[in-house]
């Protein structure tokens, strides 16, 4: 990656001092302000076509979430945005293009008239059983997906990073105890553990995003703890840490200023991959009927309506295909970005 800059250097240095070369070469202003590692990350992401595709997909979802009131305007002035508006209560799903009859959204946006050439709302992507509009579910569901991903991954990361940092930095009996705790939680297959905890939490917390989110946090932090501990073990022996320690730096300062910033990158990669994976797990729980109530603007919840129509899927394909495509694209976006990040971070790939 740095080959071109090295080649432009007037002095040709032998291979064995290429590490120093990294510091000798000219740096752009951006690189100076970001620091070497972050600059490398950013450059790697924007030059890799796969991760660019991922970023485009994710931007589309973020824009959908931001402009949701414009894409699917609130049907009434007072409306709980997490609930999908429904057109009556009929059991049988209606196909895309069916005219919206009851609870029709008041405003018809300009883009809608332009594309469909109609003045009244139709169900763009059909409805599920119970007449929940799928288009509304997908548009507002992008908010749910982004919120779930951010909340669960942030909470799990805080727990995992704290425990991993403590175990890696202090070692000894603390490390033993914490790692046994991690092993205990890893003993539960992720989805099985989350399924059980979420269903027990439902009677306590009521049907909302919280039972499933808490369950995913409780069984999700272990990856980060394990990964970070390993990287901290490698980092804490470096000279600059010893130097800082000799200069009298406190433990907390050592961890936060010197060790974490240098050991965190592999964890960041997994975090980005998990932003997609967590949403899939949450959707799987909703699909099984655990967590959010029927009619919640969540992609998995929409697909769960298909469970009643397994024998007639060719008629009601739209219940699966549209929300399924949203889930696939969303997780694909994060995986593309995460994969590119992993390639950039992998020390084996660096010098190639």
């Amino acid at each position, binding site marked *: 990656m740095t080959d071109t800059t090295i080649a432009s250097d007037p002095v040709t240095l032998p291979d064995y001092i290429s590490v120093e070369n990294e510091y000798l070469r000219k740096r752009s202003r951006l690189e100076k302000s970001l620091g070497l590692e972050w600059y490398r990350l950013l450059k790697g992401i924007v030059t890799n076509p796969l991760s660019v595709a991922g970023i485009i997909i994710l931007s589309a979802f973020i824009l959908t979430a931001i402009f949701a009131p414009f894409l699917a305007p609130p049907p009434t002035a007072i409306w709980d945005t997490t609930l999908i508006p429904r057109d009556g209560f009929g059991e049988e799903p209606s196909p895309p293009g069916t005219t919206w009859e009851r609870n029709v959204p008041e405003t018809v946006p300009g883009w809608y008239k332009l594309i469909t050439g109609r003045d009244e709302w139709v169900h763009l992507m059909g409805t599920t059983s119970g007449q929940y509009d799928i288009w509304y579910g997908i548009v507002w569901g992008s908010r749910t997906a982004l919120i779930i991903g951010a909340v669960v991954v942030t909470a799990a990361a805080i727990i995992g990073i704290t425990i991993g940092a403590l175990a890696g930095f202090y070692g000894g009996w603390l490390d033993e105890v914490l790692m*046994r*705790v991690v*092993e*205990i*939680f890893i*003993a*539960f*297959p*992720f*989805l*099985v*553990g989350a*399924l*059980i*905890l*979420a*269903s*027990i*939490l*439902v*009677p*306590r917390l009521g049907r909302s995003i919280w039972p499933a989110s808490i369950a995913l946090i409780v069984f999700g932090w272990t990856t980060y703890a394990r990964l970070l501990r390993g990287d901290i073990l490698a980092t804490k022996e470096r000279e600059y840490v010893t130097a800082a320690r000799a200069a009298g730096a406190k433990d907390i300062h050592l961890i936060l200023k010197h060790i974490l910033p240098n050991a965190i990158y592999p964890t960041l990669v997994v975090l980005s991959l998990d932003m*997609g994976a967590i949403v*899939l797990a949450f*959707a*799987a729980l909703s*699909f*099984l*009927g*655990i967590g959010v109530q029927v009619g919640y603007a969540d992609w*998995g919840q929409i*697909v769960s309506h*298909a*469970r009643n129509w*397994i*024998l*007639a*899927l*060719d008629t009601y*394909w739209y219940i*699966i*295909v549209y*929300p*399924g495509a949203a*889930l*696939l694209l969303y*997780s*694909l976006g994060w*995986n*593309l970005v995460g*994969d590119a990040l992993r390639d950039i971070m992998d020390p*084996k790939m660096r010098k190639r």
Partner: protein
Amino acid sequence: MTAFIIRRLLILPIIMVGVSLVIFTMLQVLGPVERSALYVRDIPKTEQQIQNVINRYGLDDPLLTQYFYWLVGREDPVTGETVGGVLRGDLGYSRTGREPVIDVLKRKLPVTIELALWSIVPIIGIGIWLGVQAALHHNKLIDQVTRVLAILGWSFPTFVFGLLMLLIFYAQLDWFQPGRLSTEFSLLVQRPEEFSRYTGMNSLDALLNLRLDIFIDSVRHLVLPVVTLSYLSWALLLKVTRSSMLEALRQDYVTTARSKGLGERVVINRHVLKNALIPVTTLAGTTVASLLNGVVITETIFNIPGLGKAAADAAISLDVLTMLGYALFTAALFVLVNLVVDVMYGFLDPRVRLE
């Protein structure tokens, strides 16, 4: 190596106690009255009846006492019989299965094992074989295709994938049906005089009964669930096998082997594959976990009455004891598999053995 195995064996009981503590803690989320409901089959009519159940199982005792009773059982203060006790195999009564949890687990286990065993064929066949091919033809067409396949497979939600399979191959083409057997056969296998059930696995029993028609029918019903259950695992295996192979191909001993004049086939089989597949074995644990996760969804979609569907049904109707039984079972299985993998890894890789 011996020290390593002994250490792992010593940790095992600690992990299992921890697992039981986690399960017990999850149970504590429910209050004593709610938990008393888990132990009765009939709806209690009076407050006193509820109180009796609470007393019988000691549900309002201090936590540690409760944990102890929950593990080893407890003598009923009135009748003197021992009740409860996970270690005695008493996991409680399954409300959804209408029989003791342990019986539900025993009866449904073969169904899930059958599904899992069949899934290993494509996992190894497609996952490892494609991974090896991709590495051998680095940056060629097959490599690019497998990379795309792996990343797509990794992003596909299992339940959407399974439903799409049904949509295409059942609803549209009608090649494969959900369920375990066609109607005529599923009635036949229930009659002990015509069909003896040795293992509870339809495909294996059919072979043992020399009924090729039933065997073919059961395999036909297994195709879609097996594909759904395994694609996630082979996506991962493919990725790991590929990179591990690429790594091994770059090693000096491969160059040495080639310069000795060995044929390419011998170099690959004797030198590259042998070393490249060692890291792949560590994925056995992950694969088992993803199968245990996957059966919950796969069995629900394809209407297969195995452990996974039992757990999903139990979760929806809050049949806590069945769920916890499944959790205990999966956790114990998973811990054992990981132990075996660790020990095997030590035997396969001399570098680990020496440490």
